C-alpha cells in the first residue's frame, strides 16, 4: 500500500487525492492541455463540486479519477490506492466502488430499466437472487420501482438520470462521480435529481464529486467547491463559510448569491 505523505491535523485521509495531474489531447490545431498540474483532496462523505467555464478541464479532471482518461503525469489515489499503478483487473475491481453518471445518461437503450440497473452486478458476477433484490432496492432509492419493465425511450430525462443513479449505486460504491448530471434537465427535474443525490450522500454516505456549470446545483448540493480555469484548480472553498477574499468571479457568484 502506498500512502502519500503525512496526514495533516489528524483529519482522516481524503478518499480521493489528486496530485499534480496533467492531461492533454491532440486536436487538428495541435496539442490542447485540458488539465495542467492540478491537485485536489476530497474528503470521505463530502459533496464536492468542480466548477468552471466550458473547456476549463472539469470533466477531464473528473474522468481522471476513475481513469476513463489516463494522466500523462501526476498521481491519483482513491481509497489509498494509486490508481495509475493498478493492473487492468485491479482497476476493474476499483471501478466497482466508483459509480458514475453522465449528462447523456448513457443507459442501454435496448435493455429495460431493471436490466440497466442489473448491468454492473452481472458483469461482476453477482447471483440471480442477489441481482433481483439489489435492483429492487436501488430502484426504491430513486423512486422508480414501478418502471422496472420500461425501456429508457419511454422515460423522461429526469427518470433516465434516476435510473442511471440506481445503476451507479448497484455495486454499493463509496464514490459517485457526476459529469454534468443535470445539464440536460429542466429546473424542476434538476431539483428531483439533486434531492436523490443529496439523499445518496446523507443516507448512504457516498462521497459525491460533481462537475457542473450551474451555480444553483453547487448551492443546492456541494459543501466544498474547486474552481477550474484553463486546466488549473485556481481556487477552493467551503460553501458554508462566508469568504471575503474569493478570487474568481464564479466563486463569488456561488458564495454571495
Amino acid at each position: 500500500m502506498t500512502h502519500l505523505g503525512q496526514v495533516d491535523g489528524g483529519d482522516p485521509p481524503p478518499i480521493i487525492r489528486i496530485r499534480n495531474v496533467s492531461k492533454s489531447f491532440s486536436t487538428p490545431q495541435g496539442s490542447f492541455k485540458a488539465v495542467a498540474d492540478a491537485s485536489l483532496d476530497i474528503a470521505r462523505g463530502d459533496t464536492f463540486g468542480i466548477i468552471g467555464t466550458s473547456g476549463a478541464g472539469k470533466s477531464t479532471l473528473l474522468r481522471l479519477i476513475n481513469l476513463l482518461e489516463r494522466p500523462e503525469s501526476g498521481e491519483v489515489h482513491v481509497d489509498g490506492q494509486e490508481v495509475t499503478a493498478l493492473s487492468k483487473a485491479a482497476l476493474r475491481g476499483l471501478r466497482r466502488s466508483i459509480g458514475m453518471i453522465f449528462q447523456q445518461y448513457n443507459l442501454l437503450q435496448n435493455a429495460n430499466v431493471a436490466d440497466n440497473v442489473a448491468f454492473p452486478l452481472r458483469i461482476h458476477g453477482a447471483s440471480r437472487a442477489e441481482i433481483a433484490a439489489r435492483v429492487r432496492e436501488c430502484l426504491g432509492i430513486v423512486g422508480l420501482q414501478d418502471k422496472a419493465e420500461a425501456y429508457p425511450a419511454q422515460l423522461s430525462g429526469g427518470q433516465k438520470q434516476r435510473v442511471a443513479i440506481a445503476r451507479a449505486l448497484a455495486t454499493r460504491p463509496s464514490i459517485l462521480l457526476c459529469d454534468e448530471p443535470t445539464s440536460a434537465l429542466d429546473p424542476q427535474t434538476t431539483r428531483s435529481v439533486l434531492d436523490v443525490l443529496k439523499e445518496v450522500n446523507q443516507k448512504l454516505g457516498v462521497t459525491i464529486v460533481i462537475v457542473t456549470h450551474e451555480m444553483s446545483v453547487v448551492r443546492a448540493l456541494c459543501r466544498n467547491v474547486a474552481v477550474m480555469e484553463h486546466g488549473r484548480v485556481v481556487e477552493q472553498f467551503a460553501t458554508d463559510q462566508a469568504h471575503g477574499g474569493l478570487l474568481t468571479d464564479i466563486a463569488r457568484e456561488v458564495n454571495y448569491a
Partner: protein
Amino acid sequence: MLDNVISLLPEIWVALGQTFLMVGIAVSAAVFLGGPLGILLFLTGKGQSLENRPVFFVLDWFVNTVRSFPFIILLVALVPFTRLIAGTSIGPVAAAIPLSFAAIPFFARLVEQSLREVPRGAVEAAHAMGATELQIVFRVLLVEARSGLVLALTVLTISFLSYSAVAGVVGGGGIGDLAIRFGYYRFQTDVMIATVALLVILVQIIQFTGNRVAHHLNKR
C-alpha cells in the same frame, strides 16, 4: 405454356434445395467468422478501446481486397483452395466455399458499420463500471446494435442468394443456375419467368422477416 416448367418441377425442387444449402453455408460462415472479424475491425479502429493501427490496417486491407474481386473471378481463382477444403470443385458444397469466402468480409464490413452506430457513451459507461472488453462486446455493442445487425444479415442473405446464381459455373446448381441454363441458354422463357418469380418471392420473404425482427428488437 407452362409445359417446360411442369416437366422441370423436380429439378426446380432440387435447385431450391441447392440454393438453400449454398446460401445457408455462406451465411453461417459469414456470421461465425465475418462477425468476429467485423467486431475486431471495429474495436481496433481509430478512437476505439483496442485501437491498434497495424492490426486494423491488415484487417481493413483484407476486407477491401476480397470485396474488390468480381465474384466469378474469385470463384475460379479459389478452385485449388475449394478442392482442398471440400475435396471437389464441383457441386453446391464446393460452390459454398468461394461464396463463404466472399461473404465473410462482406458481413464483417456491415458489422463494423452497425457497431459504429452505438453511442460512445454507452461503451464508456460500461468501462466506468469495470466491464472487460469481452463483456462490452456481448453486453453493450451487440445488444445496442442488434436491430442494425439483423438488417445487415438480411442484406447479406439477399446478396448471396443472388451471388449463388453464379455458382452454376462450377456446377453448384441452384435456382439461379436453372434460370441461366434453361431460361437463358435454351430460350425456355417460362422457366426463366418461374425461376425469377421464385427468387423475387424469396427476397420479399427474407426482407419482410428481417424488417419485422429488426423492428421488434429495436427499443430505442
